[in-house]
C-alpha cells in the first residue's frame, strides 16, 4: 500500500476519530445498549483501520516476539547468575519467568505494532470544526459514519486496483479471496463491516429516542 493509500486511510481515520468523539458525547449519561454497541463498533473499526495502514510487516511479528523473549531470558539468567543461584535453579527460574512473561510480552508487541501502524497515519488531529449538516447530534454522527464508509470504499477500490491479482476482484468470490490473502484489504473490509454495524446501532438508538420523546 503506497503513500496515496495511507493518505486515504488518514481521511478514514479522521472521520472515525470524529465519530468516536461524537458517540462519546452522545453516550454521556446514557445506558442504552445501542449506543454502547455503536461505541464498541467504532473502536473496532478504528483499530482495524490502523492495522489496514500496514507499516508493520507480518513476518516481523514472530521475530519481535522471539527477540523480546530472548531479552527477558537473558536478563533473568544474568540476574540469577549475579545473585549466585546454582545452575539448576537458574534454569528453573528462567523458564518460570519466561512462561509468566509471555502474555505481557505479546501485549507489548501488540502495542508496538499499533504504534508503528499509527505512525504511518501521522499525528492525531484536533476535532474538525465541520459545518453541521443536521441539528440532531445522532444524525450528524450518522453523516460522519457514512462519510467514513465512502472513504473506506475508496481505500478498498484503490487497493484492489493496485493489487497484482486485482482483476480477480471482479467477482465476489475473487474479492473474498483477495481479502483473505491481503492483510491490509482484510482489515479495511473489517473496518467497513464494523462501520456498517455502528451505523445500524445509531439508527436503532435514534428510533428509540424518537419513540421515547
Amino acid at each position: 500500500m503506497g503513500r496515496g493509500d495511507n493518505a486515504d486511510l488518514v481521511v478514514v481515520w479522521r472521520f472515525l476519530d470524529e465519530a468516536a468523539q461524537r458517540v462519546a458525547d452522545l453516550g454521556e449519561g446514557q445506558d442504552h445498549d445501542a449506543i454502547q454497541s455503536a461505541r464498541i463498533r467504532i473502536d473496532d473499526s478504528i483499530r482495524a483501520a490502523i492495522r489496514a495502514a500496514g507499516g508493520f510487516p507480518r513476518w516481523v511479528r514472530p521475530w519481535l516476539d522471539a527477540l523480546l523473549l530472548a531479552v527477558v531470558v537473558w536478563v533473568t539468567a544474568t540476574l540469577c547468575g549475579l545473585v549466585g543461584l546454582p545452575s539448576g535453579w537458574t534454569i528453573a527460574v528462567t523458564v518460570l519467568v519466561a512462561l509468566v512473561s509471555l502474555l505481557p510480552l505479546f501485549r507489548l508487541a501488540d502495542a508496538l505494532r499499533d504504534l508503528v501502524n499509527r505512525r504511518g497515519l501521522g499525528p492525531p488531529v484536533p476535532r474538525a470544526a465541520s459545518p453541521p449538516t443536521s441539528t440532531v447530534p445522532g444524525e450528524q454522527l450518522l453523516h460522519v459514519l457514512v462519510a467514513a464508509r465512502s472513504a473506506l470504499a475508496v481505500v478498498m477500490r484503490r487497493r484492489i486496483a493496485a493489487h497484482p491479482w486485482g482483476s480477480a476482484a471482479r467477482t465476489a468470490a475473487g474479492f473474498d479471496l483477495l481479502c483473505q490473502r491481503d492483510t491490509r484489504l482484510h482489515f479495511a473490509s473489517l473496518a467497513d463491516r464494523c462501520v456498517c454495524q455502528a451505523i445500524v446501532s445509531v439508527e436503532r438508538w435514534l428510533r428509540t429516542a424518537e419513540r421515547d420523546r
Partner: protein
Amino acid sequence: MTTIAARLYATAELATRAAVYCQHADLTGTVHDHTICRLESAADWLKGAANQLLPPANASRRQLTEGYLMFGG
C-alpha cells in the same frame, strides 16, 4: 457440545463470507449497509453462542463484555 460449537463457528464463517460478498456488491453501489450489518452481526452472535458453549482459552474481558451486550446478559 463440541460438534454444536464447531457448526456454529462454521456458520459464523459463512455469514462473514456472505457479508464480504455484499461488501463487494456494495463497492458497485447496489447493497444497503443494513444487509452487511445483519450478516456481520449474525456472525458475531453465532461466534458468541459458540463461545458460550465452549469458551475459548484466550477469551478476553472485552470479548465477554461484547457477548454480554449482544445477548443482553
